[in-house]
Structures are given as C-alpha cells and as structure tokens.
C-alpha cells in the first residue's frame, strides 16, 4: 500500500464555479478567474477571507490574482499553463491541506486563448522538429492514432464515437460551446487537420475560467454543499520522449496502468464500479488510450469498446458528460473535475448519470493522473 493512500476521503471539494465559455475580448484572464472564484465562493458559502491557499494555472501572475481577490494566503502555487496540470494541482492542494499548510485552498484556471487567437503551434512554440514541418500538439496524437490503427486495426469510425458522444452531451449542457449535432459520417467528412485526425478530433479553443475550493473533511461539514470526497488518486510521469511533445510510442499505457493501480487501490473500487468517467480529451485518441490504460478494455481493444454509444449518458460508461474539451469548453481538465463534482452532487440536469457515486477523472499525458470522487 502506498503511504499517500491514507489521504483517502480526507479532503473534499466544497465549492465549484465556472464562467460562461466563449469569446470574451472585453475581459482578461484575471476578470474571468475572479468571476469563477466568486461563483465557487457563492457555491460553498465560505467567507472568502478564509481562503488561505491559492493555486493558479494559466493566470499570468498569482500575486495580481491575489490582489484582485483581496486574499492574503499562506500557501501559493503557480502551475505552468499546460493542459495536464488540473489533477496535478488538485493533488498538490490535497497534500497541502492535509499537511496543514492551508485550511481552504482555491484553485483558479483561466484561459483567453480564443479572444487572443492562440493556435498552439508554429511560431508560438518552436521545437526541435519544426524544421521537418512537425509543428503542433495535435500532430503527436495523430502519430499515436496512426500507430494504434496499424497495430490494432482501430478505425476512424470508431474514433468518431468519442466526438459524437461528447457532442451529444454538450447539447444537454446549457454552458457548452458546441450545440450542432454530429454523426459518425460528419466526423469522417470533416476537414483534415493533421491526418489521420480531422477537425472534430480537435479540442475547442475558447475563453473561460474555472475555480475549485477544497478543504479538509472536518471543515467541509460547516459549508453549504454536501462535500464531494477525494477518495483516490494516482500519478506517473513519462518524460523519456518529451522532446516529441505530448507523445508516447506506447500510448502512455504503462503509466496509466500504474496510475490505475494507485487510484483504484486507494479508493477501494475498480473500473466496474465507475459510474461516470471524466477523461482529458485534448484530442479524441487520448480517450481511447485512457480507456485501455485504466483497464476498461484491453490494450488495442478501445475501438471496439466505444462502438454503439458506450460513452453516452445511458451507455455502459458515460464519459465527459459536459461535452469535454471537444464540445463543452477548452478548460484543460479543470471543467471535467468540476463536472465530476456536479455529477456526484446530482446537479447535472438532462445529462445527470442516475445515482452517480463513483466518478473518475483521468488524464493520459506525459504527466498521467487520475482522481476518484465519491459522495461525502
């Protein structure tokens, strides 16, 4: 047993908030972050001056964020603006709360990529392979999917199941950006971006912000919402091929297997107990790789596993019930953790998974993470 397993059910998410998602050139990361924070504070009913821990991601300067919110914390962490940071930050905050470094931690993520025309490739992030025309994060996932196809016979129609299910969920989510229904044929006919991936395999780029407020189990009892407990987590990095950003020759399989063993062992559940999965989906193939690593199916079997609406609410494994990065909002894992909390609380309306009691977040990335949430 891992020593950190003693943190099982010790730390709760007590407040969540998000802004609208879209194109907001009239405001900035601080304005969006402040709105998400205010909503999270209203959600939990905490006096904001009791927040003594601050974690920020994609917010330019933690101290300016603290000034704007009128906070004087005793724990501050700035996470780099990378998509993989959401669960990393939540786990760090849980450890800090358990250690007594702070009593109430607010984690704030803000993104203004849409209104500022960020395209996540080329001259914004030149790398060692740009001379060969290999220039964007999506291309790494295209390389992996091409290989998955060759090794296991996975098809683009199977991959389409991911995008189609998440779009279906977005249509049930009033906050979501994308509302047009799509079919497998639409996915097949979409504009190619980096073959074999097409437009509908790519995440959105939009503005918005998310905030989560965490505290200890004891303190959670005094707040407005029924607490949602962090019952398990797991972590493993794969840095060996980092010069090809966002790439792993074996689909992060070994790392996610390791993460699965940690998170399920800590929470005392298995894949069969998971009522809903919130899966980091910067590009649709990541979802297939995550399902295999977590053990929902064997390696190479994810294409067949997702066929026939498996990932839809009402299907065998409702996944990204808010629409995910592909169709809800590009909140880089943060909104998916908020959705996990709302599913446990039963606040998801038309997209609610009945009696959701075990909701899992996973991110298969060079820093793979998973968190299991359960009712307090």
């Amino acid at each position, binding site marked *: 047993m891992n020593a950190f397993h003693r943190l099982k059910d010790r730390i709760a998410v007590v407040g969540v908030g998000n802004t609208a998602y879209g194109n907001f050139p009239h405001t900035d990361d601080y304005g969006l972050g402040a709105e998400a924070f205010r909503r999270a504070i209203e959600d939990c009913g905490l006096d904001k001056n009791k927040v003594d821990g601050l974690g920020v991601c994609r917010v330019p300067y933690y101290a300016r964020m603290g000034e704007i919110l009128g906070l004087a914390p005793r724990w501050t962490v700035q996470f780099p603006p990378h998509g993989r940071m959401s669960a990393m930050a939540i786990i760090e905050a849980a450890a800090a709360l358990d250690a007594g470094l702070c009593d109430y931690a607010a984690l704030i993520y803000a993104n203004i990529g849409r209104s500022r025309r960020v395209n996540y490739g080329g001259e914004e992030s030149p790398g060692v392979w740009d001379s060969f025309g290999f*220039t964007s994060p999506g291309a790494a996932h295209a*390389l992996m999917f091409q290989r998955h196809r060759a090794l296991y016979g996975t098809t683009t129609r199977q991959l389409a199941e991911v995008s189609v299910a998440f779009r279906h969920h977005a249509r049930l989510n009033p906050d979501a950006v994308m509302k047009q229904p799509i079919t497998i044929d639409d996915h097949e006919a979409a504009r190619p971006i980096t*073959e074999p991936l097409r437009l509908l395999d790519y995440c959105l780029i939009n503005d918005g912000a998310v905030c989560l407020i965490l505290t200890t189990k004891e303190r959670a009892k005094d707040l407005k919402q029924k607490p949602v407990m962090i019952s398990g987590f797991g972590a493993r990095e794969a840095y060996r091929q980092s010069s090809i950003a966002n790439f792993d020759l074996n689909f992060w399989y070994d790392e996610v297997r390791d993460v699965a063993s940690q998170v399920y062992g800590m929470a005392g559940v298995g894949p069969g107990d998971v009522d809903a999965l919130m899966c980091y989906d910067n590009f649709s193939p990541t979802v297939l790789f995550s399902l295999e690593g977590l053990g929902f199916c064997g390696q190479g079997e994810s294409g067949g596993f997702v066929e026939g609406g498996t990932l839809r609410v009402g299907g065998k494994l409702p996944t990204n019930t808010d629409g995910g990065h592909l169709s809800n909002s590009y909140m880089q894992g943060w909104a998916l953790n908020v959705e996990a909390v709302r599913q446990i609380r039963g606040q998801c309306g038309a997209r609610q998974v009945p009696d959701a009691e075990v909701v899992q977040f996973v991110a298969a990335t060079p820093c793979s993470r998973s968190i299991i949430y359960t009712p307090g």
Partner: protein
Amino acid sequence: MSTTKPRPRIDTVSKGFWDAARAGTLTVQRCDDCGHNHYPGSPVCPNCLSSNQSWAPVSGRGTLLSWVRFHRAYWDGFRDDLPYAVILVGLEEGPLMISNLMGAEPESLKIGDPLEVCFDAVDETTTLPKFRPAGNTR
C-alpha cells in the same frame, strides 16, 4: 510575411549533429562512459549523468513507426507544401527521430517497414537528415 521554413537551432550541444549531417553522416549522442545512445542531444547522459559524450555515427537504418500528413501550416514557410507528410523513425540504435519521407508516399509503406537515411541540403549551413524506403537508391 516570412516564407522561410524554421531552421534547426544550433547550440553547443547540437552543433556536432548538424556538422555531421552537413558532411553526410547521421549521428546520435553517445555517452563515452556508459555507451547510452540518445537524441536529441543533452548536456549530460540521461542514463549515467556523465558529461563525456560524443556525436557517434550510426547505421542510418531504421523503421517507419508512424506518419501523419499536415493539411494546415503552422509556419508560413510550409504553406506551399500542403498537404505534406511527416514520419516517425525508430533508428536501429534506439533513438526516435521525426523526419520526412523521400521518394515515396507513406501510404505505399507499412508501419514497421525499413528505411534508410538520405540528406536534404537546404542551404550551405543546414542539411536535414531525411529517410527513404530501404534499398531504394534513387
């Protein structure tokens, strides 16, 4: 608007690689102490942390591990090439390299097919190592 393609950044670590490429030799960084092969170069050996490393010639043989085709140019310099393919090569000696396929379209190959290095002299200072199907001399 510049239409120049991005050139490799040549620094104290990578200079040996690009000098060798210009002379028509593919190299990887090899640790003089433990023999570990790696690419791109790094200031210390990732296996044993030694600073004693050299750019060692390799066979130039590898296999096609994957490929993609770009339909969008993230650099203006690639706009005229669209759509263009990029390949992932696993060198016989272990390291992976991103490159381009010469003399064939990737659809005509299978994942795992053998490749061999060839050189694309972009200008007098830069030669890019590229790959072609093994045994194809033209």
